């Protein structure tokens, strides 16, 4: 790609965010509304609020719990999903139950989970897992079920061993759907990270935002919200990086199908 092309892409990518920030800046400039402080004031408070102790005290624990819960949900979702997707009777047995659990909004589980998992780190991770696992699980089941039976026959006929069948056929074949589920799970995970910290916590971004709000530290509260947005953007960029690497073949395949 030429330098000019790169520049064009960057401009396209950043145009709308830049406009929004500019609008926010202009609309709140000189604002005296207590709840809508000028953006300049919010940004001015950003560094002081987050990068003098709170980053390691609140941000890292939050992100750590998020990643722990998210990865755990991936492992459980993919593990169970491939099992359920491969065994027809298991699928018939479990599918209605799974749909039921998926339909429960995860935040309502927080008070229940608090009852028997306490209010520590374990509970927060559990909350994240309990919300993230469903899209991964259901999409994995779908992906495994949609595996081409000709590929399955090929694997049998060339006597692929169970382990390599699992890795090279089942996981790879279902990976586009697994990635779709994982993407949904990521945004659910961020929401649950914040919510789990709002009920009972001693640290974390969500906890800190609530503290600011209760203490009427409005600019600081706004910095927290911006920080959450930034965390979301960074994680989603990382996700896209991994996804586009793992699914290169799928992008190519789709492209060739469109042409052909």
């Amino acid at each position, binding site marked *: 790609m030429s330098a000019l092309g790169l520049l064009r892409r960057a401009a396209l990518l950043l145009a709308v965010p830049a406009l929004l920030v500019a609008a926010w800046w202009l609309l709140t400039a000189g604002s005296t509304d207590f709840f809508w402080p000028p953006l300049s004031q919010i940004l001015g408070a950003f560094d002081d609020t987050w990068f003098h102790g709170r980053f390691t005290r609140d941000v890292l624990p939050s992100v750590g719990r998020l990643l722990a819960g998210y990865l755990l949900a991936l492992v459980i979702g993919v593990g169970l999903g491939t099992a359920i997707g491969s065994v027809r009777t298991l699928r018939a047995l479990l599918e209605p139950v799974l749909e039921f659990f998926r339909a429960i909004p995860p935040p309502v589980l927080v008070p229940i989970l608090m009852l028997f998992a306490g209010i520590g780190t374990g509970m927060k991770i559990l909350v994240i897992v309990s919300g993230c696992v469903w899209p991964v699980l259901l999409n994995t089941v779908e992906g495994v079920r949609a595996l*081409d039976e*000709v*590929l399955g*026959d*090929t694997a*049998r*006929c*060339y*006597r*692929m*061993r169970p382990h*390599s069948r699992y890795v*090279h*056929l089942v996981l*790879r*074949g279902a*990976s586009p759907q697994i990635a779709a589920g994982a993407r949904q799970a990521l945004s659910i995970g961020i929401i649950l990270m914040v919510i789990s910290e709002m009920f009972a916590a001693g640290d974390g971004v969500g906890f800190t935002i609530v503290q600011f709000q209760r203490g009427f530290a409005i600019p600081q509260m706004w910095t927290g919200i911006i920080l959450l947005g930034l965390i979301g953007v960074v994680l989603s960029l990382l996700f896209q990086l991994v996804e586009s690497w793992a699914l290169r*073949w*799928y992008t*190519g*395949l789709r492209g*060739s*199908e469109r042409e052909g």
Partner: protein
Amino acid sequence: MTAAPAGTAGTALLDVRHVRKVYEGAGRSVEAVRDLTFGVAAGEFACIVGPSGAGKTTLLKCVAGLLGCTGGEVVLEGARVTGPPPGMAVVFQEYGRSLFPWMTVRQNVELPLKERRVPKARRRELVDEALDAVGLGEARHAHPWQLSGGMQQRVAIARAVAYEPHVLLMDEPFAAVDAQTRADLEDLVRDLWKRLGVTVLFVTHDIDESVYLGQRVIVLSNSPTVVLEEVAVDLPAERDQLATRSDPRFAELRARVYKLVQQAKSGHRPGTGDA
């Protein structure tokens, strides 16, 4: 037991005995294959022709151990087939879908060898040889979806060949390629067969192809399927697209098989007199 089983010649590598297959669907059962019996000798090239829907694919899957027979049995190298046996390679009718799209051509061909735990150096040799044989040496790092249909077909053939099977099953492998590629692939398969001494069971609905390729053509009736007749192809072993196809004997055999397939389509069955 010291005596060879009566009825069979005892030299057959592959024995299909009274195979019957009924698909049980929701409230509906389809008798795809009624009663098929034939043998294929070691190193033989046998073709199976029959009308569309005659159960050719079904038969092949039973032979490959991918489907259980409802009745009868398939015996390969003296052992009853209950699952995919070692030393058997299959080229599927839907060859494009039989390649792993997340692997390169090379990885696709190599995978079965890895599963067989062939040492790395030997693996490389076999893969390169097979890809060169089908003229795909240049495309080894491409993914299947970057190739044309005919090239994908050749990858599937290369994978089967590199596996060094004793038995090679092919299900209408050239149905979707153009005439020129088809002729090339036919010669390629004949070549490989002669060079490797593999036993080939080749399914096709193309009468010319069956006579051109095979040493014997097994004609199936329409569904529910039995063997209508077997035609021995007594053409010279050396076949050539132009010379063989203009051989008067080729025309005779072709006409014979053609008539049988016509009969099969109109519902004629063996032992029921005239067509």
